[in-house]
């Protein structure tokens, strides 16, 4: 009978405790992202005229509110050690369904809950397939992505403009304070972030998410509801994607089956740059917010520079991913 071999005990020199301030190991990646963000912002302010305008910073939120919401859902999934490739397609499906129904004069009060329900249902279904039939998350959500994207194209072949009164007012309404403004989408995104951060940090389901990501077997043996939690994170991600889709349709005022192509990569990149381990169990929602800001800031800098082509965004994001993955590797190696 083979039993689990105990992990090899390694002789490591015990770190001598210094008096110097040492940040908590878990916080290092987030602090690194924060430092990077400050550095990038400093470089931007130093090099470009008008960069220091607070509105520039607020515009990053305005332009990326939907990404922020999607990345929040992705954080939940990645914290459990899973992945959700379907987010971009669900965002697109939401915009298309909303635009189509609004075009048929459905009241926004019906359309809004309906699209959120569709997104949540897709997430729920993927979660069930992943949990009950032990299909790897990568494949199950890939199928979800194909399904949602295919449905988009089935519903509409081209972009549909949205002219509904509620939608246009949500798109144009600006909260002004002291000469600056943000859109209502930003408020919604911030509320989502706050709720999600609270859920992750202070509620039972949040603890369960971290526990499953750390070690699903142990979580199961401890009697935690692994199945329920795992299914709910995909439902949460589906809901966040649908909400992100609603925000995107506020922003774009159109539904297009080609919206949000590759959004899943941006969301994953934001989560990873935000210091969350892709293997799950470690990370903070605040890091994800910083990750989204980093992505937004890269685009802003490239716009301000003017001479750089759009593909530099991808190269820089790739480089940053590399740097952060390396950093995490070093941190986790030291922590062990």
């Amino acid at each position: 009978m083979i039993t689990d071999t105990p992990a090899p005990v390694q002789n490591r020199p015990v770190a001598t405790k210094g008096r110097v301030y040492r940040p908590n190991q878990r916080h290092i990646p987030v602090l690194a992202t924060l430092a990077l963000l400050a550095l990038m912002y400093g470089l931007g302010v130093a090099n470009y005229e008008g960069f220091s305008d607070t509105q520039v910073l607020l515009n990053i939120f305005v332009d990326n509110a939907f990404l922020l919401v999607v990345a929040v859902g992705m954080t939940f999934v990645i914290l459990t050690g899973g992945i959700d490739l379907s987010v971009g397609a669900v965002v697109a499906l939401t915009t298309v369904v909303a635009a189509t129904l609004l075009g048929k004069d459905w009241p926004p009060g019906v359309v809004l809950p309906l699209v959120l329900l569709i997104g949540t249902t897709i997430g729920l279904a993927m979660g069930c397939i992943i949990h009950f039939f032990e299909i790897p998350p990568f494949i199950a959500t890939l199928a979800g992505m194909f399904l949602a994207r295919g449905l988009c194209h089935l519903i509409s072949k081209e972009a549909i403009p949205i002219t509904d009164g509620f939608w246009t007012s949500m798109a144009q309404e600006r909260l002004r304070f002291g000469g600056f403004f943000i859109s209502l989408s930003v408020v919604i995104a911030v509320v989502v972030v706050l709720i999600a951060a609270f859920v992750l940090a202070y509620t039972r389901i949040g603890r369960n998410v971290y526990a499953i990501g750390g070690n699903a077997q142990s979580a199961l043996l401890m009697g935690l509801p692994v199945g329920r939690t795992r299914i709910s994170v995909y439902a949460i991600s589906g809901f966040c994607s649908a909400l992100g889709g609603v925000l995107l349709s506020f922003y774009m005022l159109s539904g297009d089956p080609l919206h949000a192509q590759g959004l899943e990569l941006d969301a994953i990149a934001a989560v990873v740059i935000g210091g969350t381990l892709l293997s799950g169990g470690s990370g903070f929602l605040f890091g994800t917010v910083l990750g989204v800001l980093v992505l937004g800031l890269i685009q802003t800098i490239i716009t301000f520079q003017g001479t750089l082509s759009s593909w530099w965004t991808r190269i820089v994001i790739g480089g940053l991913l590399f740097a952060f993955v390396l950093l995490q590797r070093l941190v986790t190696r030291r922590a062990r």
Partner: protein
Amino acid sequence: MTQPTVSERSAPPDQTPEKRGMMRTVLRHRLFWPAAVLVLLLVGNVFFTPSFFSIRLQDGHLYGSLIDILRASTPLILVGLGMTLVIATGGIDLSVGSVMAIAGAVACLRISDLPDPNSVGGVLAAVGFALLLALVLGLWNGLLVAVGGIQPIIATLILMVAGRGLAQLITDGQIINVRSDPYRVIGAGYVLTVPVSVIIAGLFVAAAALLVRRSALGLLLESVGGSPAASRLAGIQARTLILTVYVFAALCAGIAGLIFSSNVSSADGNNTGNLIELDAILAVVIGGTALTGGRFSIAGTVLGAVIINTLNITVYTVGIPSNVTLLFKAVVVVVLCLLQSPSFRAWASGVKRLLPTPSRAGGAA
């Protein structure tokens, strides 16, 4: 890791006569369901195009829908081949699409810079350079995974994101068109009535299959995928093996990129190989390779790649908007994955057994 493989023994005892034993082994073969789906798709096509199976000789080339499917499948077969070996070691390579784009872009750029784009030597040099670059990219992936110890999915995500940008940087965001007859041969040429791309893919698949199944290499790969730590303790050089499969995957992707760009005589950094990594993973999974590593089937992957392209062509011939293919893909993925999932089989057979004889309840997990 903890995925139990379903052996014949673990199935609950059945009171069926021995006659059904053969039937069961056929049904239980891991390539049965993919093959059944392919046959169903092909036969279904006949209803829409009665001449679907006819292959004729025209201008010394083979023509026909089946040949078209094979030709269209070659990039995916090659990419899937590399992906299969990577997944066999428990890894994954998301960067294949980007590597395809880079290889095509570099080759086309070099050829367009040639004084005479029709010189065979120049084209060979360009192709060689592109493949060398692909090898270097594969080495980068391999080093990150094998030496850096970074999770494969994230290690290759880096090149997936950055590589797409690099490919656009190489082409300067434009589509590079080349007029080079020697280059066109790779993707659109024929040798002895057979498309060159099919021959290239066939050679690669055959060579890989021979190398992997006629030597201990395949066993070693599966062992690394099953448990890297145990393999290392058993004296297998897991690191070198992992490094090699990523380099091989990138090489396959590079050749696929050349075939793709040569077929259309142009290179598009933005769209070449877009989302092919997902199709390749799909092909691998359809073919019965476990995503967790430790079990793989090259024949299955080839079958999977052909299924995906047959699906594409079927949707075209039936006259459904091409993007709706995604919907069918989703259905095929879900159905195949469920059929291959041990827990779904247990559940399904549990339900089946529950219905006629309630006394035999239980057994299903």
